[in-house]
């Protein structure tokens, strides 16, 4: 336990740095994937191209991307921007597919009704399709959040400080407690951000639980009439 008491400030500082590296990719993933996901949802040609490209991007191992990407675009490897860029690529790759799926799942009847009552394409997207796709997109963003927080630790291997430093140092100095502290802090940050997203979702999408209840009723109704 000595190690932990002597290094509380280190753990705290690395946790903050970890958080600073985790949040930008999650936000970038959501924002960039929105137009791309819409493109993949709307046109068959762009769907094929985009889903293939994001599928391939997601396949590239993180350590390989962390090393190869800065080499390709002429960035030094040991900068936070590199880790943020690489993790943003994964976040976008995951969110494009989720966004496209979420928009696909919006009931076409609702879209036609919205058009019928006079929404423009732009207004209909923001006020009908986007809110209705919200719950599925939130589910995707939660996956992105948890995996991003966990992946940030790999950045330590190329020299960008995060909680991963505790793993490296703990292995070299043979202090299991140090590694365990790192694991616990990563899980705590991941679960905290996840809980924050769930709360945010309840706050901005208060209808989700109502929809879920009525959907169950609809299924029961369908089963009864089938």
């Amino acid at each position: 336990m000595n190690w932990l008491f002597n290094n509380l400030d280190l753990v705290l500082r690395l946790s903050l740095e970890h958080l600073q590296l985790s949040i930008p990719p999650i936000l970038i993933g959501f924002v960039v994937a929105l137009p791309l996901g819409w493109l993949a949802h709307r046109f068959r040609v762009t769907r094929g191209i985009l889903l293939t490209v994001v599928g391939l991007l997601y396949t590239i191992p993180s350590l390989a991307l962390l090393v190869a990407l800065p080499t390709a675009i002429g960035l030094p490897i040991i900068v936070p921007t590199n880790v943020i860029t690489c993790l943003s690529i994964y976040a976008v790759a995951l969110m494009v597919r989720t966004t496209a799926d979420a928009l696909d799942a919006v009931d076409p009847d609702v879209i036609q009704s919205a058009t019928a009552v006079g929404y423009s394409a732009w207004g209909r997207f923001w006020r009908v399709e986007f809110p209705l796709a919200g719950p599925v997109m939130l589910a995707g963003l939660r996956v992105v959040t948890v995996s991003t927080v966990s992946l940030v630790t790999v950045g330590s291997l190329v020299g960008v400080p995060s909680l991963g430093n505790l793993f490296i140092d703990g292995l070299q100095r043979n202090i299991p407690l140090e590694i365990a502290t790192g694991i616990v802090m990563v899980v705590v940050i991941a679960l905290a951000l996840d809980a924050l997203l769930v709360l945010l979702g309840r706050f901005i999408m208060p209808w989700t639980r109502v929809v879920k209840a009525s959907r169950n009723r609809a299924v029961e109704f369908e089963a009864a009439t089938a």
Partner: protein
Amino acid sequence: MNLFWDAIVWIFTPVWPRGTIVNTVVQRLGEHILYTVISLVVAIVIAVPIGYYIGHSGRGRQIAIGLSGAARALPSLGLLTILALAIGVGRAEIAAVFVFVLLGVPSILAGAYAGLEAIDRRTIDAARAVGMSEWQILTKVEIPLGLPLLLGGIRNAALQIVATATLASYVGLGGFGIYIFGGIQSHDIPQLVGGALLVAVLALVLDGLFALLQKFAVPHGVAVAMAKSVRTRPSRPTAVVGTPIS
């Protein structure tokens, strides 16, 4: 782009240790594939029966989802280092395989039970109605119909394992990670980028193989049912013109 060219040149001018029939790149490739295959097989053996049990009985689904979510939050690098310390760096293979199995199980489990759950309940009721036993329903109806999603889960698991197997070198094991870590330590950029390219290409090839497998292993009837493309479903019943009123 020069750096990539240097890396490619580096890949194709490998060291041939004296008295061996393969060069070091092939040897590292073999190690990387070995870790991946062993871990994947163990993960499949663990996850598929549990997934089928959950999918067939509908029991324990919430627990499986909760555990899978928690497992996703665990950083592989942390698990690998702490297990290597706990088991002993001399036997790091066990630690590595354990971590990779843990990494692969949630995807395969999800693929197995989601594949069974996605089946139309009426199909299963029909199978029961024609007198199939529970075992026959599982093996002749549920497993073939759930195969596409199960293979998707195994594909995800394989990709995660092959990517994470790079970290194995960090606890003194082989695989392509050796080149990345070696390159970082000695500032040998061609070796570093060459290692990264090798891992990326291996992952892409593996993904391609699984895509082919998914295409061929799916029963013909399922393939036809799956071929439903986007936006073919009319949003509302089309107007019925000229049908006689009976």
